[in-house]
């Protein structure tokens, strides 16, 4: 907003104040009536009164936006933890994963006094939120197929991001924006290269199925096994890295600095998220008080984080540990299968849950892009509102399965089955289990037996995961 508009400002200011009061009141009312946390409904009410509220409330604050198909809730939580040392104090965020405008408005209203705001942003809203909030940092994680009926095809999203980042040249506040972008996802690179300042991070992404066609010229992108990539018909290729993850789980900076990526959160994808946060946190400047968080401090603070919004959390039930895993799309499910392989464990049982509500995507065809064939030899339970689709997919993947439509009953069935196996095997001492593994690496499921001490893995897509987490 330009100076000298004092007279014109009065009405919008009054409107914004009313919007804020209304948003808070609706939130309080919603909580009082037990209609949920109320963040979205309050935000919606506030935006109805003042559609430009987000921009007004963001003005003068340090804002970071986190977007991408996978990992945005976790990475947002990580960035808050990195900036605050896990206390969350002084930083406002949309912790409930309400990542559309109503959720953003609610976060800004709820955290009116926070000088720093970290927002998770739905991919489709990133461009407009950049224009509204003039963020100091934008973290771009990845782009892959997800909810094609609702969101968009990958290239259209990449173009939208690109426009949003390019259109940010003339900022009212004049404060600079740094984009922290995944250099291993060509779609992210295509979008981010439009921004003036980018820190490219090589996170070692493995899902490439949505990036074979060059977004610049329509040519073919070739990926080499060492992580590089290049279009075969134009100059579009992997940019020069600011930092990257090497094989020994170390974050290596271009200046030679090496930091160990030792975190509690499991999986390659979470180390990738942590690397992005380690690069992003210092760009926020003195976010809370006088201190600028260094990459080393950021990683130190992430080390102890064990779950974000229930993802990767464990629950004890009927004497058994149940681990809750969320994956929403083919890239996400593939990453979880990688995690199970990486841990090399023998889960006591695997429960797969699929819903197809609006937040999940209404079309379940994506199940056929998930390499369920990798579960062959294990026995799994299919559950969720679309367990029938999942069962057919598992049948064609030659994966032994049973169907238990109710997710909680499915978890209990997996726990009961694990107990039965334990009884069959006898008192499975560790040494006995080891020799059992050595004797039969067994396609018949025996390989799962020694792991009866392991957790029951529950893997669900968005609403299937959330509903089970709430029921537990």
């Amino acid at each position: 907003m330009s100076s000298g508009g004092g007279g014109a400002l009065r009405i919008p200011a009054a409107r914004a104040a009313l919007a804020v009061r209304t948003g808070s009141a609706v939130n309080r009312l919603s909580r009082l009536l037990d209609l949920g946390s109320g963040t979205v409904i309050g935000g919606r009410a506030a935006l109805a009164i003042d559609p430009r509220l987000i921009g007004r409330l963001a003005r003068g604050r340090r804002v970071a936006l986190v977007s991408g198909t996978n990992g945005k809730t976790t990475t947002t939580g990580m960035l808050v933890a990195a900036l605050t040392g896990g206390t969350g104090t002084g930083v406002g965020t949309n912790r409930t994963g309400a990542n559309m405008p109503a959720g953003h408005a609610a976060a800004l209203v709820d955290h009116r006094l926070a000088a720093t705001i970290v927002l998770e942003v739905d991919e489709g809203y990133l461009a407009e939120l950049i224009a509204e909030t003039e963020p100091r940092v934008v973290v771009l994680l990845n782009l892959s197929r997800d909810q094609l009926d609702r969101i968009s095809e990958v290239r259209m999203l990449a173009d939208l991001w690109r426009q949003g980042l390019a259109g940010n040249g003339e900022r009212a506040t004049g404060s600079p924006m740094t984009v922290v972008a995944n250099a291993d996802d060509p779609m992210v690179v295509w979008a981010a290269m439009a921004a003036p300042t980018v820190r490219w991070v090589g996170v070692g992404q493995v899902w490439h199925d949505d990036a074979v066609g060059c977004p610049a010229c329509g040519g073919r992108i070739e990926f080499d096994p060492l992580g590089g990539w290049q279009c075969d018909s134009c100059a579009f290729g992997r940019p020069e890295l600011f930092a990257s993850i090497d094989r020994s789980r170390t974050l290596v900076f271009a200046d030679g600095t090496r930091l160990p990526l030792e975190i509690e959160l499991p999986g390659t994808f979470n180390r990738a998220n942590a690397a992005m946060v380690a690069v992003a946190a210092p760009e926020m400047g003195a976010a809370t008080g006088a201190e600028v968080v260094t990459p080393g401090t950021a990683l130190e603070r992430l080390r102890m984080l064990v779950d974000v919004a229930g993802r990767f959390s464990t629950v004890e039930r009927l004497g058994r540990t149940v681990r809750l895993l969320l994956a929403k799309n083919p890239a996400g499910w593939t990453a979880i299968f990688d995690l199970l392989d990486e841990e090399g464990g023998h889960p006591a049982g695997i429960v797969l849950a699929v819903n197809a509500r609006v937040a999940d995507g209404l079309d379940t065809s994506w199940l056929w892009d998930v390499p369920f064939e990798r579960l062959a030899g294990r026995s799994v339970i299919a559950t969720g509102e679309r367990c029938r689709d999942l069962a057919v997919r598992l049948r064609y993947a030659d994966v032994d399965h049973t169907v238990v439509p109710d997710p909680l009953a499915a978890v209990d069935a997996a726990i009961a089955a694990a107990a039965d196996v334990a009884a069959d095997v006898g008192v499975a001492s560790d040494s006995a289990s080891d020799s059992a593994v050595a004797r039969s690496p067994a396609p018949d499921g025996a390989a799962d037996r020694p792991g009866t001490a392991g957790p029951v893995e529950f893997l669900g897509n968005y609403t299937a995961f959330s509903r089970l987490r709430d029921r537990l």
Partner: protein
Amino acid sequence: MTGATDPSAQPELVVVVVYPDLLGTYGDGGNGIVLAQRARWRGYRVSVREARSGSPLPEGDLYCLGGGEDGPQVRAASLLIEDGTLARQAGRGVPVLGVCAGFQILGHRFPDADDRPHRGLGLLDITTRKGRGARAVGEVLARFDRGPRPADGRRLPDLTGFENHGGVTTVGPGAAPLARVLTGVGNGGGDRVEGAWHGRVVGTYLHGPVLARNVQLADLLLGWALEARGSASRLAPLDDTEEEALRAERLAATEVRGLRGAARPFSRGFQRRGIGNPISRPAQPG
């Protein structure tokens, strides 16, 4: 046993999934998996060739094309025309299944994101233009009135699937509609039909994937593939309990929606309430 009717003694059945790197966005690669497994379970030797763009299209016994984004769709069409294999094989009676973008490029013309027309393979007498209204998104149920029939002459069970497209396809006199729409939009031309077929070329807008939801259509295509190479085409029955359970569940869900939404496409009501597509985008085929 090596008799002519022993499936395992027959030459390998080659299922070609056409350009999954360009036409693999919507999970339609599952059609290739369904076809291959249903042949394997009956004792046939099968290979699935995921034929990426940039290499010559292999010769096969059955071709599957899936949905894709606008740019890749245009590229796929021009590569297939240049390559020539698909048209040649279809001319020999080899069955072809095209879904969504893959359906559109089997026709004479289809539009790109900017509504410029592009030439298709001309294997089906259809043309596609951009729709003016909302993108068609939602469950579809359709009846195979004039659709292809198996050897016993019986109508296939109703076609079920999920559509997600902005194109409007008109079926010319040289092809027939695949099915009559009961719920959903389908081709969108006002005549309430879905898909098209001629000879052994079948096109549809439906994902799901369509052959996982409609295994008898999969078996029809498999029978055609065997027929095209002169093999015995009678297929042993399979235990389709799980596929039937999926169909029953989807049919029940679609009927409920159909009653609630009358004849209106599911997606429109949806977008009017403002929780549909969060970003304004041009209607696009695919």
